[in-house]
């Protein structure tokens, strides 16, 4: 498995993928290796290393590794590749470039839609905000789904809750330019708080820690929404701020794919995580259970059913 720059301890998608792989490998009784990429220039050499060491299934984690994974897969048609978070479609023909790559992707917009609805319902100031690490499709899909959920709430309830940090029409928004939890991310969160935001969705690895710091500094009651894992469980230090988390079951997807590969049943059809197959979902409200509207969970369940049966459309680059 090759990580991207976040590393295997990012409490986010690299870590989840790794956990899934370890679990599958332990069950199969096979050996696994992990290599961490610290920079973009590490991707290709790391992949070559794993090929040289005789790995027969290689997992690449992250959108950013797609190009390197595509090249490596083309050069080694006997090795099975699992690409987490990207379909590896470098020639943009709508199909995965190599027959030996299995993409594991997630239509997170569906779960983010639910989070947007919940945020809009929770917000007292009528302004909710989001910001991302970089304008990657896998990042912006959260922000886009979130904005759509807020929009749906406004239409359904006749309210006017605003979303800051994401412009659905322009498909652009507020980004820190990196995935470090540093002062830059804190200042963006602070900027959103200055605009009266009372629900924050930071998308991208550890940058939620910066948002949490900004929230604590402000002394206001502002809720945070986690991404990828149920952050309440992976990082209890921000648990008291978390409204909910938008989960991507990267561990489950990776686990299934490796188990299949290990049993000789590798198939390259993409796995798309949706609300229906529980590849994506909304975590529970934990500490906020008593603070949200009692009817909210029921409404969310209805919307979830509506998204699954297609009566509520959620657009994203995966759903078309």
């Amino acid at each position, binding site marked *: 498995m090759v990580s991207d720059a976040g*590393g*295997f*301890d990012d409490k986010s998608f690299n870590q989840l993928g790794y956990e899934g792989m370890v679990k599958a490998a332990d069950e199969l009784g096979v050996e696994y290796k992990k290599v*961490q990429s*610290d920079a973009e220039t590490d991707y290709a050499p790391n992949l070559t290393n794993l090929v040289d060491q005789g790995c027969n299934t290689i997992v690449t984690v992250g959108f950013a590794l797609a190009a390197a994974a595509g090249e490596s897969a083309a050069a080694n048609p006997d090795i099975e590749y699992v690409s987490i978070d990207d379909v590896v479609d470098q020639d943009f023909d709508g199909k995965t470039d190599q027959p030996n790559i299995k993409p594991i992707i997630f239509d997170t917009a569906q779960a983010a839609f639910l989070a947007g609805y919940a945020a809009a319902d929770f917000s007292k100031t009528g302004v909710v*905000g989001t*910001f991302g690490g970089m*304008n990657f499709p896998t990042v912006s899909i959260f922000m886009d789904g979130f904005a759509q959920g807020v929009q749906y709430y406004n239409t359904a309830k006749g309210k006017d809750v605003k979303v*800051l*940090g994401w*412009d659905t029409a*322009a498909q*652009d*928004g*507020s*980004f820190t*330019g*990196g995935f*470090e*939890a*540093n*002062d*830059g*991310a*804190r*200042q*963006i969160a*602070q*900027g*959103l708080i*200055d*605009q009266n935001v009372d629900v924050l969705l930071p998308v991208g690895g*550890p940058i939620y*820690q*910066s948002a949490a*710091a900004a929230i*604590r*500094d402000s002394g206001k009651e502002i809720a945070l929404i986690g991404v990828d894992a149920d952050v309440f469980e992976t990082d209890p*230090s921000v648990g008291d701020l978390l409204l909910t988390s938008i989960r991507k079951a990267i561990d489950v997807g990776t686990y299934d794919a490796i188990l299949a590969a290990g049993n000789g049943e590798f198939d390259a059809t993409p796995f798309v995580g949706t609300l229906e197959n529980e590849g994506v979902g909304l975590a529970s409200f934990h500490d906020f259970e008593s603070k949200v509207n009692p009817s909210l969970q029921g409404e969310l369940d209805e919307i979830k059913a509506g998204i699954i049966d297609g009566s509520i459309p959620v657009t994203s680059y995966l759903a078309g």
Partner: protein
Amino acid sequence: MSTSPAVVMPSSEPIALDTAVIKSWKAPIAFGIFTVIAFLMFVLNARPGETTFRLSTERDAVQLPEVVVNSATTGWVVFLALVLITAASALAVISRRKVSIWLTVLFALLFMIGFLAWAAAGSSLPVTGLLFGSVSLAVPLIFGALGGVISERGGVVNIAIEGQLLAGAFTSAVVATSTGSLVLGVLAALVAGVLVGMVLAVFAIKYLVDQVIVGVVLNVLVTGLTSFLFSQVLAPNAAMLNTPPRFPRLEIPLLSDIPIIGPVLFKQTVIVYVMYIAVAAVAYALYKTKWGLRLRAVGEHPKAADTVGIKVNATRFWNVALAGAIAGIGGSFFTLGSVGAFNKEMTAGAGFIALAAVIFGQWDPIKATLAALLFGFATNLQNVLGIIGSPVPSEFMLMLPYVVTIFAVAGLVGVSRAPAADGKPYIK
């Protein structure tokens, strides 16, 4: 000495002392370019709506009214004012007068007002929030730049600022978590900075290794070491080692009640107040004390310093260590002053920006501080505009701080002259 035939005696010819003013069209040309940009953006692409400048937050002692302006009208007014300033600067050049620095400041200020009114049309802009964040973002840069100024004034090129910041951030997080003491955390950051500085000093001064190379290697070394320790030690034991307390914001009585300036400058954390003192102390000491004179002497002309009995290499060594200490304190801001927990490579290039601030600030502590503040402002401007939904794409906005820095270095500052012996080891 003077009896040596090799020494060139001062020539007997009288030295011309009239100050020649060089006719430089740089300022009017730069003004002209920005005026054209202003015309294209604020006038031709004027955006409808009103811009609200919020001058105080609900928690400030003195409540200022919100300033609401029409975006398009402001654009016109600013454009005309910029034309006037450009014309004034051109006249000044023609009549062989120097273009006043205040004219440049006024130009930049007006351009910024026009830009903000344009970009934030239809929304409200929190001016205090914008400036507060700018100062906060500039803090590690200023500490780093002070370290850079001291080291380079002494003649040792300090590329390792990034490593010193990162080492400071790491150790302060670990020590503050395990001891529960913020003061010890900052002291640990200081020690870590000194250690990195001393490695640089030993290799650069004692073993005469190329200073740029040592600096780059140190940065990579510290990045690798802290990332390794983070993954192997900190991440599995986060509760014991990586959940440091954070400095609370401390309001200075009276001063924090001043409108705008008060909440921006005097509602910060202790590290920021330490920074104010550090800037003042370095600026004073560098020009007014024996220490400063000796430091500048070994950086400008080590041979001359040596002849009057200053121990060149010892002076350099301890000042590089001192520079490391200052940069190390800056590192603690990343964790104790800002986010709390340490993160891999969390300095994200701040050390290099600090280095740019040193050069841009012409190796002067005050100017370097202003340069760092400019960078902090540009960064936070981009943050704020991203949030209120600016017409400029986010990828371009992320370049803004760097574009501003390049323009400022190239257009407004002009020649930066390094200390004469900067980067040159002294061998007797």
